[in-house]
């Protein structure tokens, strides 16, 4: 069974300790919610896992093997993919080409990449707009292209950084369905960073809560939800 782990990850930005000895695990087939108030270190942790931020201490392991020091592109080839809060599509490329780019990573030919890309786009419900320029898409659709683009990398571990930010309620419901099907349809574990508590409770199997750079709680949704520390630090204050 494949697994992604962080072991005692700490990140120090000058005077600020953004992460302090965080252990997180993400197992095959699960959807793990990463929660925490603003500044808790969620995005920093995702940056470390995806190779954008070097940890001051600690290691990241994929299936027990250290992937510390790998660049983001090498990590993507190891099966760790992520989306970004700012989606940053290639606006002058078509929607399909945007997804093809990442599909090329594992594909033997342009045709193979194209069909992987089509499948990912159909999955997020954007099949009909594949030929349009990415710059013309509405905001919510851009975010879905972002997910398709990460999926086309055929990740075993998919990190979704606030995918619902700025979405309407009905767009959020569509998103819930998409995220829920990810482990089944693409065989990847999902790490979901999200402010929308309702969404997190609905799709996640397990929660990992950060506060001030430390792990506050980690466990099944029901347990964490009723944890008094979590209520005090996060849910209560929200």
């Amino acid at each position, binding site marked *: 069974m494949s697994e992604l782990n962080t072991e005692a990850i700490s990140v120090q930005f000058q005077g600020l300790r953004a992460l302090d000895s965080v252990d997180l695990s993400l197992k095959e087939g699960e959807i793990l919610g990463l929660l925490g108030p603003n500044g808790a270190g969620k995005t920093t942790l995702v940056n470390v896992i995806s190779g954008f931020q070097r940890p001051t201490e600690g290691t990241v392991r994929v299936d027990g093997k250290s992937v510390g020091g790998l660049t983001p*592109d090498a990590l993507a080839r190891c099966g760790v993919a992520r989306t970004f809060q700012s989606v940053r599509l290639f606006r002058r490329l078509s929607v399909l080409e945007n997804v093809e780019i990442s599909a090329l990573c594992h594909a033997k030919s342009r045709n193979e990449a194209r069909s992987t890309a089509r499948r990912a786009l159909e999955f997020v419900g954007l099949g009909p707009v594949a030929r349009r320029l990415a710059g013309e898409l509405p905001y919510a659709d851009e975010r879905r292209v972002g997910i398709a683009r990460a999926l086309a990398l055929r990740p075993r571990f998919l990190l979704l950084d606030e995918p619902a930010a700025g979405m309407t309620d009905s767009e959020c419901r569509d998103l819930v369905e998409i995220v829920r099907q990810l482990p089944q349809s693409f065989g990847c574990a999902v790490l979901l960073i999200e402010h929308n508590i309702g969404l997190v409770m609905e799709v996640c199997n397990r929660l990992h809560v950060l506060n001030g750079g430390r792990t506050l709680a980690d466990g099944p949704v029901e347990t964490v939800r009723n944890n008094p520390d979590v209520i005090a630090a996060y849910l209560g204050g929200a």
Partner: protein
Amino acid sequence: MNIVQLLVDAASLGSQYALVALGIGLVFGVMRMINFAHGDLIMIGAYALVVPTAADLAAPLIGAWPFPLLIAGILCVVTLVALATERFAFRALRKRGADGSTLLISSFAVSYLIQSLVLFIHTGRPKSVSIFGALTQQVTIHGVRVGLVDIVTIIVTILLLLGLSLYLRRSRAGIEIRAAAEDFTMARMLGVRADRAIALAFGLSGILAAAVSLLYVAKTGVLDFRMGVPLAIAGFVGTVIGGMGSLPGAVLGGFSLGAASMLLQALLPAELRPARDAFVYGLVIVVLLFRPQGLFVTGNAGERI
């Protein structure tokens, strides 16, 4: 001067500048660096036609080969030099996280290095080559006499642009370069191999530079170790007025610049013609005042975080 002749001349110089601007634009796209040595790649290609010697008379070297071999030979020389500059002058700097201005300085160093080497081998005296004698004649089309070399320049440019655009659209490497040109960091995050995309952009810019070498020598018949400098500047200005980071913009910007120079050359009163470049670059400033993002970049292509 006949209006058709004038338009052909304008399109010919415009084509030449468009090829230079596209070569510079391709590299800028993947590296955010203006490669001022691009003009010297063109110069290298031109000098490769003749035997390297300090003698005044330039005996043909690659220039004596049969035509298809000659073209292939110049393409190889220039592309290899382009790849070598990438490998030895820029890659190491890039790996150490050098920013655009450091790379720019490095490109100046490469430019002067190439110029000094050619100066050392060939001396600084311009040499004349008449390798493409057949192209220097005039042809008459519907009663209008135009230079054959200008027609060839325009046709070659159109073919190169079509070929390159097909390549960038259809091939696996092409889509990677286009994505990298728009957002290099993001392209890397999605698994595009930076070294390969950059080397490829340099290779393609080398092919374009080689084409300009041949077209330039065919037109002027003169070799000068500084011949690349004004071309590089024209190409750079072309990419700026076209809109940095946009490949079609580079082509159109370069073309506009060349065409405008040629038109001003013909239309300015005789006593003002020596100051032609002042008018051309004055126009460039006016253009940039009104369209700082470039002429051919659409409004919403800007950065959005």
